[in-house]
């Protein structure tokens, strides 16, 4: 097996506020191979964005990565200085964000902002070449009349177009990894579909690995090879798209599925089942499984001890006590599998 492009090993990231330590990510491990698309799902505060920002080295004060390793192409990013990281950012690893309306600098033209990034990572490239490169990228993401539109300012673009510009900029230096943090959340539904189509299309063409972060399972199904479900700062379940969608082995993943409206034209009305309660307070994270206070199957042990990560097959792992030898049989949660930790 070839070396993975990205390997995140037991990363813990906390924010040290005046009130105390907020443990946003409490041990996240996963890896990503060259060319793969990884989805990270979870609700607000599950630690998915902080995981991504940790990889980027963009954790702002008062936060920091407490422990763990982030190996990108074999090199530990946690140990790198900000200036070393800035050489990688936008070049080897790019990131696009949730709100395209505010993610571009309003006082500089698109050309100015794109050319700046291209020339930052291509030392000595002439301005003319950089502009040509920017225009090429804008064409790639489907901006009409790119030679003309590149002179525009961000406020002259719609939200969807701005996100295209963000993607074009992020890909302009040919990164090997693109992290997209809720890239469609702030957009209209029709535009969402367009942006997802675009990303789906680009993943073939630019041959970058992608980490797609979202709270919307529907978004992820279409393009991801692997999916990670996060909750309360830890990974609850990990698997291929098939594992997570058709064979979920964690009550939280199941809860997420049940709370998605199924567009059923037959008129077959089914009530949505919400997950009762709210996510844990990460300043005082629960002793046991973070989902246990909301879990319909919670047992005594769930409240007491963190669930072990259990390997179900080659690709599929889940952190749940129900899968442990000693647990009673409940629904689909068939016992068995190798206990990893």
């Amino acid at each position, binding site marked *: 097996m070839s070396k993975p492009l990205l390997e995140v090993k037991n990363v813990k990231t906390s924010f040290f506020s005046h009130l105390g330590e907020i443990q946003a990510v409490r041990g996240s491990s996963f890896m990503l191979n060259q060319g793969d698309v990884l989805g990270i799902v979870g609700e607000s505060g599950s630690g998915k964005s902080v995981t991504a920002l940790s990889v*980027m080295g*963009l954790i702002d004060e008062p936060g920091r990565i407490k422990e763990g390793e982030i190996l990108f192409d074999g090199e530990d990013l946690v140990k790198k200085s*900000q*200036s070393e*990281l*800035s*050489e*990688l*950012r*936008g*070049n080897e690893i*790019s*990131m696009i*964000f949730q*709100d395209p309306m*505010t*993610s*571009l*600098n*309003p*006082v*500089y*033209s698109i050309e100015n902002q794109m050319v*700046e*990034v291209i020339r*930052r*990572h291509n030392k000595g490239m002439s301005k003319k070449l950089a502009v040509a490169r920017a225009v090429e990228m804008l064409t790639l993401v489907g901006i009409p009349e790119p030679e003309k539109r590149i002179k525009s*300012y961000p*406020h*002259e673009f719609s939200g969807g177009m701005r996100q295209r510009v*963000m993607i074009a*900029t*992020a890909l302009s230096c040919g990164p090997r990894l693109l992290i997209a943090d809720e890239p469609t959340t702030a957009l209209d539904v029709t535009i969402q579909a367009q942006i997802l189509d675009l990303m789906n299309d680009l993943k073939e063409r630019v041959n970058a690995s992608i980490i797609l972060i979202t709270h919307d399972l529907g978004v992820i199904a279409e393009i991801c090879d692997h999916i990670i479900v996060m909750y309360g700062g830890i990974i609850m379940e990990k698997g291929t798209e098939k594992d997570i969608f058709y064979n979920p082995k964690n009550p939280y993943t199941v809860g997420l599925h049940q709370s998605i409206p199924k567009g059923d034209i037959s008129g077959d009305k089914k009530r949505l089942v919400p997950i009762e309660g709210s996510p844990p307070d990460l300043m005082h994270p629960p002793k046991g499984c973070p989902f246990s206070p909301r879990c319909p199957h919670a047992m005594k042990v769930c409240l007491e001890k963190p669930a072990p990560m259990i390997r179900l097959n080659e690709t599929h792992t889940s952190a749940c006590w129900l899968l442990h030898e000693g647990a009673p049989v409940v629904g689909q949660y068939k016992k068995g599998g190798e206990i990893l930790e």
Partner: protein
Amino acid sequence: MRNYFLRRFIYSLFTIFLIATVTFFMMHSIPGGPFTRERPVPPEIMRALNAKYHLDDPLIVQYFDYLKGLVTFDLGPSFSKIGVSVNKLIITGFPITAKVGLLAVILIIVLGVPFGIISALRQNRPIDYIVTFGATLGVTIPSFVMATLYIFFIAGKLGLVPTFGLKTPGSYIGPMIALSGYSLSFVARLTRSSMLEVLRQDYIRTARANGLKELAVIGKHAMKNALIPVVTYLGPTIAALMTGSFVVERIFAIPGIGRYFVESVTNRDYTVIIGVTVLYAAFYVFMVYLVDVLYAIIDPRIKFEKEAG
């Protein structure tokens, strides 16, 4: 774009005209005149004086005479300083005032903006506390207190600079500090808060995520946005400083224009009052105009809105 600036320019001229008109009629509506004294002046002399300066003409005629002068930049003779024209007063006094004011403005920009930025970048660290404390002092201590303390200690006790006048380069320091103290502190605070606000914006995170160097993130992406409110404040402030402060000129015995202005009010020296008022107003209006032009250069969104509207 050009239309907008032209339109704004015409508005500015109109504003100055209005100010001249209002000042003219207000001054003339106050009882008494330039030649009224405590001991009554003999009526013949009064008549002769009034006739000499055309003060016996109907007010409306005087008004149009005055406007005629204004358009040709002839502000008329001073009533209290015999044989001296208002133009002459302005030409001798204003350059001195403007020079001190300009130095104060430079001090504000050169110190206020960088202090604000450093303070924002080192938020809640010792340097930030020092700057914030200093800026609060600067805003609260009145200029005359600062000037008096300066003269007492620096000029008097230590004898480092002359106590009054502008004879040596060193004697500019005191007036500069006293004049700029408030605005310098204010600009530092404004830059700090504006910078802190901008640093939280998404596009700053984008700039970092794109791997830009910290110098470019701050110096290019944050700076231009953070300076918009500072420019707004600086426009009128520059006008105010360049036209001087009577108090500071008085304390440091600077032969600027401020003194004439205050004297002219007590003397009902109509032409000096209106002349200086119009000069101040024109300067102010020009600075506001300049700020608007700068806005359009700094922030492309403003250009767009004004053109459309």
